């Protein structure tokens, strides 16, 4: 489980996730998260309009799409950080409509943020301990009586130190989280999410702003989540990474799921090309266009 060594073997892909033909909104053998006609508008702009999507259990699913496709908004809707105009969605068979964010987290669906939210003026260890669920010392009255929560606190402490060790942050445990580098904060946020033993981990751009050396270690950590039986859904722009670790890919454009499938076939889907270049790719799209061309070049490179 050493994390800064480049893996010699290719990660084992989970296959056979879907029922019938792979296509937008196709059924999965064992879905953990199901969304039905979830719609969110901001004034006249429809940010998310997902008809039907299922996220397979025990696999790593990537959510990709050009900037402004509604990926982060969709994340926020699924985790209770934003409320859709309509629609229903369920996690593990339980409806998540009108469930507040903190209760979604308690159900075992833990998310991270695109802009890392390390709690700066708490120590790294305190950041970790905050992630543990069901702490009796978090009740105001019980907090006054340390003998009630001391034992649980020690267990949480041990678990936090163990996880920090795995993420190579154990030497930093008494430092303020604010003193960590950007990449270390990403690691801390992921480690903190694991403190609650989630069943589904949703990572919003885990690789954004992380240097290549740390990227490899982050990739391994994500693969480890799967081998420990967790389901992962992540948003990412880095196509190499998506191709490398994802078992299933959802493609979003203009708020809709336009394609899905395993990473190799989905990237040949004309809908994906359309999504990145735009159906009207003869029109001038300005600066963002070149970025999308880059992405497509990456795709073509990878294919060869």
């Amino acid at each position, binding site marked *: 489980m050493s994390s800064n060594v480049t893996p010699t073997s290719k990660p084992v892909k989970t296959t056979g996730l879907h029922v019938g033909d792979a296509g937008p909104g196709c059924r999965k053998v064992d879905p953990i998260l199901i969304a039905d006609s979830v719609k969110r508008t901001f004034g006249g702009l429809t940010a998310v309009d997902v008809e039907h999507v299922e996220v397979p259990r025990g696999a790593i699913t990537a959510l990709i799409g050009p900037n402004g496709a509604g990926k982060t908004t969709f994340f926020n809707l699924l*985790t209770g*950080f934003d409320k859709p105009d309509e629609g229903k969605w369920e996690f593990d068979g339980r409806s998540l409509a009108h469930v*507040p*964010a*903190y*209760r979604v*987290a*308690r159900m075992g669906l*833990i*998310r*991270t*943020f695109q802009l890392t*939210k*390390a*709690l*700066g*003026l*708490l120590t790294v260890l*305190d*950041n970790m*301990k*905050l*992630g543990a*669920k069901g*702490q009796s*010392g*978090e*009740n*105001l009255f019980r*907090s*006054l009586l*340390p003998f009630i*929560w001391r034992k649980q*606190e020690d267990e949480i402490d041990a678990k936090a130190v163990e996880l920090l060790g795995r993420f190579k942050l154990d030497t930093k445990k008494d430092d*303020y989280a*604010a*003193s960590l580098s950007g990449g270390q904060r990403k690691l801390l946020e992921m480690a*903190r*999410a694991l*403190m*609650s033993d989630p069943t589904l981990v949703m990572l919003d751009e885990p690789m954004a702003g992380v240097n290549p050396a740390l990227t490899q270690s982050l990739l391994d950590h994500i693969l480890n989540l799967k081998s420990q039986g967790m389901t992962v859904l992540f948003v990412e722009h880095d196509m190499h990474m998506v191709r490398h670790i994802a078992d299933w890919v959802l493609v979003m454009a203009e708020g809709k799921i336009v394609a899905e499938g395993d990473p190799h076939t989905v990237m040949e889907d004309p809908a994906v090309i359309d999504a990145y270049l735009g159906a009207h790719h003869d029109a001038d799209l300005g600066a963002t266009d070149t970025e999308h061309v880059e992405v497509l070049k990456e795709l073509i490179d990878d294919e060869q």
Partner: protein
Amino acid sequence: MIDWLAIFSNAAQEVISPTTAAYALAALGLAIHFGYTGLLNFGQAGFIALGAYGYAISILSFGFPVWAAVLVAVGASVIFALILGIPTLRLRADYLAIVTIAAAEILRLIFTTNTFDALTGSASGLQGYKDGFAALNPIPPGSYGFGPFTYNAFDWWIRIVGWTLVVIFAVITWLIMRSPWGRVIKGIREDEDAVRALGKNVYSYKMQSLILGGVYGTIAGMIFIMPRAVVPANYQTSLTFFVYAILLLGGAATILGPVIGSMIFWVLISFFSGFVARAVEAGWLPFMSQVQAGQLRFILVGVAIMLIVVFMPQGIFGNKKELAFVK
């Protein structure tokens, strides 16, 4: 000639005065709000006023015993916190600041208006509520102490009760802030969405913090009125800013900061106002009248707050290391 001995002994008395204890406790409540949870409560004067009026009205108008009057005041402050918190704690922090500053003013104006004169005594306020508290005094009548610290039995009783309460609440604050509860509270100060994503009911924690710190303010209000009468003019917005000055002087997220900060604040205020008043009397400041001299201390408080925030934002007891990471 200036009577330096009187100036210094007046200043020294402030160290253990009940007013200092009341400000220390109010600042400790604000430390929970602002220093630990990050709630911008600008209405601490309102919580203090509820303590003062809740206690005095219960005793004068309803003839309640001391313990019941205390419960009424604390109950009123819990309700006040709920009314403030329910609509605003879901919003961004600055909304709470606007609502609390307005609500505290509304309370003060309600206490000042003639409409409720029978209960509140309007602008002239209330007095004669101290008998029940004085009757609990176990100290036999007489004069005790030494030097500037010579008081009668009742004055000692106020000081003992006031500072005992300060110590009790400081210990409670210390206990809860080192517990998992305190960890969640401090996490909310740093980033409430992150804490929410970890499965904590942030709204409930912010409400608990608002109520708890408000109750500290209310108990401070009851200590505050023991050496004086209840006068609505005492509960202006400037009271809140004095409490903030104490908190920032001592260190916002500390336990000792508000307590020691209150002592330093009042000793300095007493020293400066004593000095300026006598200096005017002695003709050292010919451009200034006695009345102007009385106002000068408020200017000094304002200047002091600015200097602290600019040059010593962590306060006396604050952790300098934290400053390296201030955004």
